[in-house]
């Protein structure tokens, strides 16, 4: 565990970057430091590997003061990933990744074998090994940066806005990849970002910091969204925190209806059978069960369904895996106000109305409240 104990960083000109900060960073999880620029989050991160020395206070790594360790030994035991990757432009991808093993005195062959292993782990094609950084895209460079940080298998990974400089699509890919790698490796990750969405998505624990180096709140993301500590945190979370909080509610509890689903090759009797009073629209699927679009029952004539004239169904959600947020988004996107649930193969498994989703949300809130009360009573 990394324990930051009332640490202050004051610069010679009197600026206070971090003010009596205390944090306990749990092992084998992602702790995100988030806040506006000038809140001291990067300074805090850099104090953990002593690139910045604190003016007051101590930082303990597994109970030992980091000041007592030789600085380069400490740094080699912590992976470090930064914005724009900071790759060595004069070394090949393989040699970039092998940097820390080489510094630790591993042989050339062993280091390179390890580097190849890591390229695979972060999803880089082996054919890139002999390339130079300028030949890679921003996203690929960032993956190399992550691989390089993991090369010597350090227990701690420090990440300083690693995904800020890539476009949103690539960023999402990198975030998912990080979560997958973390599932496999279980590192103690300290992650700095100014993007609250990224913090909520990645963090097991999120530390919100405010200008002047103060800690505003330290909590799991779901608690942050439901109970912001003060107006600053609430403001920082943004206007739609209610919607975003739905990301933490599973869609598994939704009551899916299968009645309003008909196949495109259905007979007149089948269409009539599906035309029930509580669903004003029918979802038409292809013969394999994949959704095609919505239609009013009276517009459907057996054998003459024109798929081009169906109403769009928006973006379906994965029943069970996706959150209530995805389900609600789907229902809002669809002009019929109904969301389509699909399985992994993309086959429609059911449909659900906005109203039913609303009920599920109210139910989930009630459940959380009971949980919260239970937690408060327990200790």
């Amino acid at each position: 565990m990394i324990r930051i104990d009332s640490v202050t960083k004051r610069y010679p000109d009197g600026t206070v970057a971090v003010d009596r900060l205390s944090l306990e960073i749990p092992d084998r999880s992602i702790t995100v430091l988030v806040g506006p620029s000038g809140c001291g989050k990067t300074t805090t991160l850099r104090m953990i590997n002593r690139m910045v020395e604190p003016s007051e206070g101590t930082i303990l790594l597994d109970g030992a003061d980091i000041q007592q360790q030789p600085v380069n030994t400490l740094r080699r035991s912590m992976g470090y990933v930064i914005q724009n990757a900071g790759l060595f432009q004069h070394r090949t991808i393989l040699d970039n990744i092998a940097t820390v093993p080489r510094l630790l005195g591993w042989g050339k062959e062993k280091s390179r074998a390890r580097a190849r292993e890591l390229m695979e782990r972060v999803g880089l094609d082996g054919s890139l090994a002999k390339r130079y950084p300028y030949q890679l895209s921003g996203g690929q460079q960032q993956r190399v940066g992550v691989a390089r940080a993991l090369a010597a298998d350090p227990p701690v990974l420090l990440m300083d806005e690693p995904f800020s400089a890539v476009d949103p699509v690539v960023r999402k890919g990198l975030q998912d990849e990080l979560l997958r790698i973390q599932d496999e490796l279980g590192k103690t990750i300290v992650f700095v970002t100014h993007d609250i969405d990224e913090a909520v998505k990645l963090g097991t624990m999120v530390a919100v910091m405010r200008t002047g180096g103060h800690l505003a709140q330290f909590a799991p993301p779901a608690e942050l969204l439901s109970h912001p500590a003060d107006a600053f945190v609430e403001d920082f979370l943004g206007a739609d925190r209610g919607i975003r909080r739905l990301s933490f509610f599973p869609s598994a509890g939704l009551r899916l209806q299968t009645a309003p689903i008909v196949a495109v090759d259905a007979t007149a009797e089948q269409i009539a059978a599906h035309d029930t009073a509580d669903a004003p629209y029918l979802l038409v699927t292809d013969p394999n069960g994949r959704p095609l679009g919505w239609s009013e029952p009276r517009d459907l004539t057996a054998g003459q369904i024109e798929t081009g004239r169906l109403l769009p169904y928006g973006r379906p959600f994965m029943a069970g895996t996706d959150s209530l947020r995805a389900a609600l988004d789907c229902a809002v996107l669809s002009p019929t106000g109904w969301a389509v649930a699909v399985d992994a193969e993309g086959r429609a498994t059911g449909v659900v109305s906005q109203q039913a989703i609303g009920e599920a949300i109210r139910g989930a809130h009630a459940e959380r409240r009971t949980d919260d009360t239970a937690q408060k009573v327990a200790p």
Partner: protein
Amino acid sequence: MTELFDMPSDLQHSYLGLVALHLREALIPVLAGLLVALPVAQLCVRVRWLYPPLLWVTTVLYAIPSLAFFVVLIDYTGLSETTVMIPLAVYSLVVLVPAIVDGVRSVPQETLAAATAMGFGPLRRYVQVQLPIAAPAIIAGLRVASVSSISLVSVGMLIGNEGALGNLLNSGLSYNQPRLVWLSVVGTAVLAVLVDALLVVLRLLVTPWMPRGNRKNTRTRAVKEAAR
């Protein structure tokens, strides 16, 4: 054909001998300059305020005419090659120090931060990260310094006939032989071009990591093919 390269006996060298002497007198000072410039430049990078006054000093040294340098140096090193090479080495500093300082400073901040964070000590970081990335700028400086040094060696003729191809030029003028003048002038120019070309090749060899502008080439090729 052999007569073309016949040398007057007072030069005491064959043509190739003169060329070799010329190269030595031109390039040893550049190498010596590089050895001095490397630590000096690193000092300028670390101690920022030192750079402007140091640049000022090297520029003033560059402005001193070589002849004046020779007059002072003759008292210490006599009428020798060393007397010619010392000013040349000093002159090379005015090009090399800024080249190295700019090269080292051009290393991106995040690259340096990454190196530090991975546990590079200052010396290792300088040798393994900063210098290799500064190599193109340093070699660009070496090109200018070498070429100017090759042209300046001829002045050595003024002190005890230590000007190599410069002596040949002097002989050609005094014996009224245009052949010798041509051999001297063309020889010096060819040397300069060859050394420059070698340094370009060296840069290509040590910087496989630099973008080569392949895209532009393929585009030109495509345009040419389309024109056909």
